């Protein structure tokens, strides 16, 4: 069963073809391809209008790379929530048009749930109940994932997302953009225990997290210690973020009794976080999954993959499916 997936909830336009929910035949992401050559220019990183210009070439490329023609598709899946409305509607309109023209089912997908599915390409069985830690620039959530029964938000940040904290701290420290890779690189040679940065809300005894206070602490530390070794600062900051996330993930695993943890989202590409989560899971006797980097950031393969299971469960959408900006990430 071949499913075409479309994702346009934020900056990137992406399309993918996935077979039976497990085999990725193609996964095209606008910022990560040479698409701009087709237009003779650079694709700007942010502008909803860019989705309109990208969407058809990206879908075409995904079908060509997969060697699949539209009539062979069993369904078309699309991110319907949450995201920026102006961006979501572009993907939705394209998906509806394809569903209608090809006479195949349309499947609306929740972006957060799709992120968690990335680990199903890394050996995780979709049906196994688990905890998903979704960490990106826009989201930081702990989720109980019950396969067919969907997802339930257990906790998350009360202010900045973890990825946002990386970007803003990188900016404060003059380390460039994007912040995640920049900090990780500089942190390699630093001592993660050299600067006692705070762990806001770590001991809150629930699954809420906070990263804005940590960001502010870095700012003050820099102000008061002008000659600080930046590698030490980056390493200490990265350690603090990874520590908070690992501590809360551990609590979610203990509270729920689930024996599987999956991490996903852009920050899941961070090596120190993966290391720390992996160690914690090993200590708890919990199985740990983390996707390859291309499947951490926004992509359509996760959308097409999850859709295969939604289809099996009969969760097909009507053609009047609407884009929803935010709200509970429930299907």
């Amino acid at each position, binding site marked *: 069963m071949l499913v075409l997936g479309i994702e346009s909830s*934020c900056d990137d336009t992406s399309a993918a073809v996935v077979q039976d929910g497990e085999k990725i035949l193609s996964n095209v992401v606008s910022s990560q391809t040479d698409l701009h050559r087709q237009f003779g220019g650079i694709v700007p990183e*942010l*502008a*909803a*209008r*860019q989705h309109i210009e990208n969407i058809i070439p990206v879908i075409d490329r995904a079908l060509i790379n997969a060697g699949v023609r539209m009539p062979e598709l069993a369904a078309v899946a699309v991110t319907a929530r*949450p*995201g*920026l*409305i*102006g*961006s979501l509607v572009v993907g939705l309109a394209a998906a509806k048009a394809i569903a209608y023209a090809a006479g195949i089912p349309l499947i609306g997908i929740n972006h957060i749930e799709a992120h968690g599915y990335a680990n199903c390409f890394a050996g995780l069985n979709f049906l196994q109940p688990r905890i998903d830690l979704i960490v*990106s*620039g*826009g*989201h*930081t959530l702990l989720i109980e994932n019950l396969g067919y029964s969907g997802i339930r*938000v257990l*906790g*998350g*940040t*009360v*202010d*900045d*997302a973890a*990825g*946002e904290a990386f*970007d*803003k701290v990188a*900016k*404060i420290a003059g380390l460039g953009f994007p912040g995640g890779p920049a900090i990780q690189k500089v942190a390699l040679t630093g001592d993660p225990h050299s600067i006692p940065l705070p762990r806001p809300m770590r001991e809150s005894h629930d699954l*809420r997290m906070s990263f*804005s*206070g940590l*960001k*502010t602490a*870095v*700012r*003050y530390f820099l102000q008061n210690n002008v000659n600080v070794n930046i590698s030490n600062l980056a390493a200490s900051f990265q350690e603090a973020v990874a520590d908070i996330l690992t501590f809360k993930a551990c609590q979610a695993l203990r509270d729920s009794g689930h024996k599987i943890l999956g991490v996903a989202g852009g920050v899941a590409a961070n090596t120190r976080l993966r290391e720390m989560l992996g160690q914690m899971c090993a200590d708890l006797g919990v199985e740990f999954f983390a996707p390859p980097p291309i499947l951490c950031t926004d992509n359509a393969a996760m959308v097409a993959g999850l859709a295969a299971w939604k289809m099996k469960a009969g969760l097909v959408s009507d053609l009047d499916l609407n884009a929803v*900006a*935010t*709200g*509970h990430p429930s299907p």
Partner: protein
Amino acid sequence: MSKFIFFTNAIDQTVHLGEEIGKRLPCGTVVVLRGDIGAGKTCLARGLCIGAGMDDKALFSSPSFTIMNCYPSHGTPLYHCDLYRLKSSEDIEDIGFWDWINGEAIVVIEWPDLVLKELSESYLLIEIAFGVGAEERWISVESNTEPMVSLLKDIAYARVGD
């Protein structure tokens, strides 16, 4: 233009001030939040949204990446925007920003500089500055409309009893 200055000594106090303002905001109000990274804009915005009646506090998070979060509320719809990542007025147009300023919601805008000139002047302007102590903040709140000014007086006097 009337300007009120509030002082807070802790994040909780900043959130609380936001709640006090938020619960008095009429539908259609646009609140713009200025201040450096780490000043506490998002904390104040959290207070504003809680005060204005968002249904589920757990849904609140920073829109720096998502650009706009819209929170269900039992009263007025709440739009929480952050223009931090946008670079030009073209970006503002592209994301459909002006559709959100429709008088039918309370709109909170962080990093508003790209849109300040074009917003009608009836917005509530909040600026957060760092104080001397680590958690001290000076929070100035300005408005030029009579209802908003009396709302601010209300909060200023209410705080005398705190």
